[in-house]
């Protein structure tokens, strides 16, 4: 079964990094994360909303984030995600990788 290419698949694994980065600023629930990414990228990055949840599960399984039940600004029960110490380390790793990659790509593009 072929799956449609995700909008954020231009850089594989970047969704995880974006989530971690978002959560490193503040604790948020799923919808909030989507909103935050869209707003802070001036709507350039559109997270396919459905893909968020599998990603959150994966991050939680790896022990990088932690979900606890809390209450949203609208006073609704929601699962609020926090980044863990391991998550911050991972974020650092991914940020470095991302930086290397973008520099490399920039060089290639510049060389052309």
């Amino acid at each position, binding site marked *: 079964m072929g799956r449609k290419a995700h909008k954020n698949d231009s850089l594989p694994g970047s969704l995880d990094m974006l989530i971690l980065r978002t959560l490193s600023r503040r604790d948020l629930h*799923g*919808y909030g994360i989507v909103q935050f990414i869209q707003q802070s990228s001036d709507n350039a990055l559109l997270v396919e*909303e*459905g893909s968020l949840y599998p990603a959150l*599960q994966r991050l939680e399984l790896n022990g990088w984030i932690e979900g606890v039940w809390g209450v949203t600004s609208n006073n609704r029960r929601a699962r609020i995600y926090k980044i863990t110490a391991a998550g911050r380390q991972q974020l650092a790793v991914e940020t470095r990788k991302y930086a290397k990659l973008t520099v490399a790509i920039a060089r290639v593009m510049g060389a052309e």
Partner: protein
Amino acid sequence: MLRRLRYWIESARRSETLREEMELHLAEKAAELEEDGITAERALAEARRRFGNIGMKREESREIWMTRFLSELGQDIRYGCRTMIANKAFSALAVLSLALGIGANTTIYSFMESILLRSLPVADPGSLVVLNWHSPPPFNANKQWAHVMHGIQGIAWPGAKGVMFSGMFPYRAFETLGAENPVFSTLFGYFNGLHHNLTIRGQAVSADTEYVTGEYFRGLAVSPAAGRLIGPEDDRPGATPVAVISFVTSQNRFGAPANAIGQPILVDNVAFTVIGVAPPEFFGVDPAAAPDLYLPLHTNVLVDGVQAARMYPDGNFYWVEMMGRLRPGVSMAQAQAVLAPRFHQWVATTAATEGERAKLPALILNPGAAGLGSLRRQYSKPLYVLLTMVALILAIACANIANLLLARAAARRREMAVRLSLGAGRFRVVRQLLTESVMLSSLGGAFGVLFAIWGVRSLTLLLSRGQENFTLHAELNWRVLAATAALSIVCGLLFGLAPAIQSTRPDVMPALKSSRGGGPRGRVQQVLVIAQIAFSFLILVAAGLFVRTLNNLHSVQLGYAREHILLFSLNARQVGHRDPEIATFYEDLRKRFESIPGVGSATFSQSSIISAPRTGQAIKGPMKIGAVTIEGARVMAAGPRFLTTMRIPILSGREIDDRDQPGSMPVAVISARLARTYFGNESPVGRQITLPEEKRDVQIVGVSANLRYGGLKNEEENAMTVFVAASQFPPDRVTFALRTAGDPLKFVQSVHQIAREADSRIPVTNVVTQAAEIDRTISREITFAKLCTGFAVLALVIACVGLYGTMSYNVARQVGEIGVRMALGAQRRSVVWMVLRRVLILAAVGLALSVPAALVAFRLVRSLLFDTRPNDPGTLALAASVLLIAAILAGYAPARRASRIDPLVALRHE
């Protein structure tokens, strides 16, 4: 991995969490969209659209928690459970027949495991070897004994072509092989001391005794539960008599192992000191025995008297068994290559004549990891036969379920077609169906284990009835359970595969179009039914043969009474009664037993008649009438009124009675056949038999009818028997026999009381009815016949259920055809016949295939039969007719149903 597992376990809760999270997300999105001025309804739809496929996302998330395989397995299991619950009758039937089949297999396998496969509970059993020897047949052309072995204490067993095998050696052979042995780190010896009177704190019991050399415990690498074990310093002439007792004995008699250390005990009135207790799991080297008492080899001189001392230097008397532990890196073949010439050299020096030199024993080494082979020799063949039978039963059960599943697969064709056409992979559907069948078989296996628990218990009971102290511990250990689990899964795959493949054939369109009818003719089903019938026939024939064997054994003419006789044994000599007082002691006891109300007469003899050959002759040396030596006669020491009590007719003269006292003229009663052989038509009464070695003559005072002396199977009928007076040839141990009114076991209490009053130190052992004592000698055949009958019934029932299911399915499939036939004027009778004819054809094909198989297969079990040929036509015919009748009964219900089909209803269906 652990985390995954925890996630998987919590997956239900997590799934709920995820659902709630996603709903919240959708709600918030919708709210946001609503703010942009879209109606609530459309906002929600838009939110959904943007979110993507919710179900798939959930699946994806779940996949993160656990592997896809596990998640699909979970689905399959849930679906399987629903299917099972939806088809309760089918599932129950399948699980039940599997449980019976798997239970029977587990039971038999656990016995095999304990008898044939299990290792001794000692360190590194793999490096133990048993020493045996074999030699050409010991009799020369004149049927005379010509062999370096002049005497043996223990057993020798015959191999192919009369070759003699034994594990007994002279003590000097043990010394020769043990000296500076380059291949064994230890060589140790032992012999079975049988029963001795063990007195602890004034209380006497009969204890199984094992005499062991000083290296025995070190060689087996056993550590004591308390104290220390027998060492080389304890096993030499003149050493302080010490003993090691079994763990059970220490618990029963001293309360705990530690309490036993240093305690004095009496073994046949000889004082010993307990120095140690063997570990609880230790049972010596023979899985068929469990000694209560281990004594240093050389103490047999103290316990058994001077004749024991004579055995040590005698190079022609075989009595010590040996085991060795191989040095690291030495193989059994290497050890044999070193030791065989050494033994040969030694044994050649013990040969006195050319005849003896021609038949010298040759040493052979056998693996000793599982201990001695006596049980293996006796039970391995029956166990293999039984295992074959239960495997066949399981095969029948599997065929049965495969058949029912095939029928169901036909019914589920539509379901499968729908699933396949919706895009399910064929492999995925097959896997789902296989999950269902493995679930069935696992459930069957689980219940089978329950059956097996019961089966092991009852089979142990059945087997142990034949033995005084039964030591076989079959148990459902992890190895047996692992085998059962593997068996269950294999069964599930076996019976599930064919139906799964058939029901997922890719041609989905016809199945989707038509709702019923059609379908393949079910050739697989017919093959399965034929196989079931063929297997059942084999099992039926086996049962028939073994039941017939048992009947033949039971109808053997004994020549003496079987019912209403109570037997029990006493050994007064072991507690210190001596000649001539011992004769009066036994006689006084006899009179007291006879005075119990309800006891018609009481007597005693050296043993029961059935086990008499094992206790040996009552006299030493040959018997002569004038110059003629009596050949092949058996001599038994019997007390007064023996013939009366045993209901052996007195043909002339008198039986042995109170008049025959130690000091009076020795007397004998001979059997009719002996009288006829040596005295012709003359009356033997009043004639003399001379006993040169006893330096006495006995006078014949009577002639008894012939009787079967010894076991039912191998002793020649109407053996020549000589009864001598027990008062004049006193045996050590006697077996009393009471002729009772009603159930003999009612008198056990009084017997114990009287024996205690006479001498409280003597234990009464082996209390048993004569009938049970006789059955004990054929316990293997009884067990076998019972088991086989049970298995045959089981096989027949399962096969009939299969036949019934197949025929019912066929009838259901042919409703239309039968309807047409009936509409065209077919009689009900002919419809019934049509169905039954198919049953009979299937049965006939099954029989035709299995009769030749039976003829070949049962030749292998000839040695287990008695007076019955493996191709016994009566048994074959009986088995065939039972099978045909059962088949007709199983086919009749569907046939009747077919004849009740209303043509109108049937045709409307088309």
